[in-house]
């Protein structure tokens, strides 16, 4: 499996522009690009009343769980998933082997329109990720000068009186 590529400013700006356009077309409130291991990569939309990193993790794992059904059903892949709420609905759209588009929208909005525009947005994001993938070989951050000692005790326990 090819790992998710490093994202640079150019990718971030392009993906953000695609998602903003998608939100204005579909009238959805939030769009997230999530790596399937549960990492939130890009988020666009209204200030949400939920923690987007948490939603990204739950959404990625929920989608991955359904992929176990793919083999049993003799399918190649599931391209999406949908959950209808009373007030808010969520659409999952597969982008590529590593990433997903998660869309949060008002339950009164048309699912058909959201799905239609989401498919276009997912294809555009996939294209940009492919560009990042091609560039990735020369990418990377130089950590050569990082002092390994600085990696000691990254996490500290609070003292008893705190």
């Amino acid at each position: 499996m090819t790992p998710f590529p490093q994202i640079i400013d150019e990718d971030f700006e392009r993906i953000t522009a695609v998602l903003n356009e998608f939100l204005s077309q579909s009238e959805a409130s939030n769009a997230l690009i999530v790596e399937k291991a549960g990492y939130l990569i890009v988020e666009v939309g209204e200030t949400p009343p939920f923690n987007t990193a948490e939603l990204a993790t739950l959404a990625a794992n929920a989608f991955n769980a359904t992929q176990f059904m793919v083999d049993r059903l003799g399918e190649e892949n599931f391209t999406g998933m949908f959950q209808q709420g009373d007030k808010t609905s969520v659409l999952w759209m597969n982008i590529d082997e590593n990433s997903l588009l998660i869309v949060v929208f008002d339950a009164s909005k048309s699912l058909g329109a959201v799905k239609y525009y989401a498919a276009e947005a997912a294809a555009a994001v996939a294209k940009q990720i492919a560009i990042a993938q091609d560039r990735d070989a020369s990418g990377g951050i130089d950590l050569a000068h990082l002092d390994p000692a600085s990696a000691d005790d990254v996490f500290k326990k609070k003292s008893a009186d705190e």
Partner: protein
Amino acid sequence: MAIINQANKEIQVKIVYYGPAQCGKTTNLEKVHSDVETANPEDKGKMVSLATSSDRTLFFDFLPIEAMSIKGYKTKFQLYTVPGQVIYNTTRQLVLRGVDGIVFVADSQYEKMEENVESLANLEDNLKTLRMSIRDIPYVLQYNKRDLPNIAPVDYMEFLLNNREVKVPSFEASAFQTEGVFETLNMITKMLLHKFINQGG
């Protein structure tokens, strides 16, 4: 695999706590969540537990936590546990997706040795299914529940669980008393950061 987001200046890393049922994986995360010192309250996310009504992990526990910056990059750690119960193997495979580092939590009680060995073998099998090898992934062992009376000597646990050419670091712990919890987490973190240094990101 860790995600390096140069646009957001973020490195995201996934650590999975693995081990047999009721060995203390969730307790490790709970203690990290309650006792970790953070500069900003927002560095520590909320712990999410998808558990059964009897508090057994059904899907996973998840704790996002932010550590120091490396060369201007925020390092975000995602700590997960897997359900230990044998029947949830598919779920364990699911949670292992994209794992960067593993903490294997073993239960030190004598009667749990067989389950420890089976769980470690199950981890190796599940990694193979995901086309990964335990030899390529940084991992540490934690011998938990050292506060209980009927525990096996550490040498015996080393023989059972760490009997290989290159031994991995192991820690005695009583997660319930927050002993050994931070030592274990810091070691796997250090191993991961060293791996990034060696691989140049």
